[in-house]
């Protein structure tokens, strides 16, 4: 009998070798207590959180929590049903209304996770004979959406407008085309030149989907994302987003101005064949989204944090994923997985949590320590973080 697990032997051996060095397992950390959006207790130690995507610090907002508690009391703990059967409550409609207002768009469709939003929209929109043209560094949920559908999948080099255009030109005449881009790419924290890319996509008759998961609430004058910041939001056919980052809970969505958009509720399988979000989640989400409409001060402070950390780490000799701070993600490039894991552990001992990211999630086989800043980090916390990096970096021999 062939052991179906044998395909994982390489990964099992890599983990064994890493853990045999005595390093703490970076993929098995438990947050024992969460004190605020920026502080938790890990291994009994107070730890600054710098790897949560909780960009706007909404998870402990008193209004958000109150809305969730009230919904638990009034609507119960869960819907036990699909959005198209018994799973659409007043709160699901209310959060879709909040999204329409937030983005200034005609339609909004809420999924149970951001992963399912990409999976559902991409696999449903691009069918047999259609072409999906996408950035090679796209998120796993985008790739899985491509794999689940029947379209021809054509990747191009990261953020390379010319490579994208060449591929669009070669698509047979008459075929449907969907260009899939992200506002912020979460591994290196770099942004896409959406203005130019969308102009090229439209010139070749393609529809455009932009995943703004890592920009919502923060980038753009109204926090609508990179497309808004570059003045091209009205050119985007589908914006994909999530509630699990700036919004501070869980869930995913797609907003669109397409007049036929609502039909997707009947044909999109990851929307239909799963239970809808619990009432407490959709009530916390809509309260948070409405507060994010008026969060210009927090956005300005988050930019300050991002700039300060980026400059501080560069000055201390770290190699970063971007030359300039482009988002709330600052990615520190590690020489290899082993020293990445050692640095991650050294930071944890300092009292700092960051994400360790390694292939295949990362581009070009890189090991990264990914830092995501929060509007609730104080200026003092950011200075403390820079000091922790400096000590840990010297201890591990990276700087």
């Amino acid at each position, binding site marked *: 009998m062939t052991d179906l697990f044998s395909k994982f032997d390489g990964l099992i051996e890599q983990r064994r070798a890493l853990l045999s060095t005595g390093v703490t397992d970076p993929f098995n950390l438990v947050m024992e207590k969460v004190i605020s959006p920026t502080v938790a207790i890990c291994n009994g130690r107070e730890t600054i959180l710098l790897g949560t995507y909780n960009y706007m610090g909404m998870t402990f907002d008193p209004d958000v929590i109150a809305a969730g508690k009230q919904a638990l009391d009034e609507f119960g703990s869960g819907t036990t049903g699909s959005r198209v059967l018994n799973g659409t409550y007043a709160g699901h409609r209310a959060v879709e209304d909040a999204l329409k207002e937030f983005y200034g768009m005609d339609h909004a469709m809420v999924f149970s996770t951001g992963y399912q939003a990409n999976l559902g929209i991409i696999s449903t929109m691009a069918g047999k004979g259609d*072409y999906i043209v996408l950035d090679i560094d796209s998120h796993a949920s985008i790739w899985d959406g491509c794999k689940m559908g029947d379209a*021809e999948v*054509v*990747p191009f*080099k990261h953020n390379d407008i010319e490579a994208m255009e*060449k*591929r669009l030109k070669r698509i047979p005449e008459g075929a449907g085309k969907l260009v899939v881009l992200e506002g912020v790419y979460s591994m290196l924290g770099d942004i896409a030149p959406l203005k130019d890319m969308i102009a090229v996509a439209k010139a070749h008759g393609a529809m455009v989907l932009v995943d703004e998961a890592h920009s919502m609430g923060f980038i753009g004058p109204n926090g609508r994302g990179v497309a808004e910041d570059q003045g091209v939001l009205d050119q985007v056919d589908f914006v994909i987003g999530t509630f699990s980052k700036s919004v501070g809970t869980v869930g995913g969505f797609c907003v669109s101005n397409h007049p036929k958009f609502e039909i997707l509720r009947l044909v999109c399988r990851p929307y239909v064949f799963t239970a809808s979000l619990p009432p407490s989640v959709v009530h916390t989400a809509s309260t948070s989204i409405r507060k994010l409409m008026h969060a210009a001060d927090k956005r300005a402070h988050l930019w300050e944090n991002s700039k300060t950390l980026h400059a501080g780490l560069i000055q201390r000799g770290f190699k970063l994923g971007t030359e300039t701070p482009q988002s709330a993600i600052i990615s520190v490039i590690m020489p290899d997985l082993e020293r990445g894991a050692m640095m991650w552990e050294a930071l944890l001992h300092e009292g700092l949590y960051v994400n360790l990211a390694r292939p295949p999630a990362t*581009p070009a*086989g890189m090991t990264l320590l990914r830092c995501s800043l929060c509007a609730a980090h104080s200026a003092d916390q950011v200075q403390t973080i820079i000091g922790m990096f400096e000590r840990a970096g010297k201890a591990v021999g990276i700087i």
Partner: protein
Amino acid sequence: MDRAATAARIAELIEPFNKKGVAISDATTFAGDLEWDSLTVMDFVAAIEDEFDIIISMNQQAEIETYGQLIDAVTKLQG
């Protein structure tokens, strides 16, 4: 372009990607013999696509495991 001419062009294109100097025949596999990672595959596919002005979608790439299959596919895709 016929299969022989296509094969000659591809032989030139693959050279800078064949860093280990593996002797290449129609039976050579990209993942096994050449040990290419996904980024190398993307760059090589892009070079082929640009040279022949074709698209080799991911769906088609999944069917191409050997050098000989690649030459057949490119010959066919040029129509």
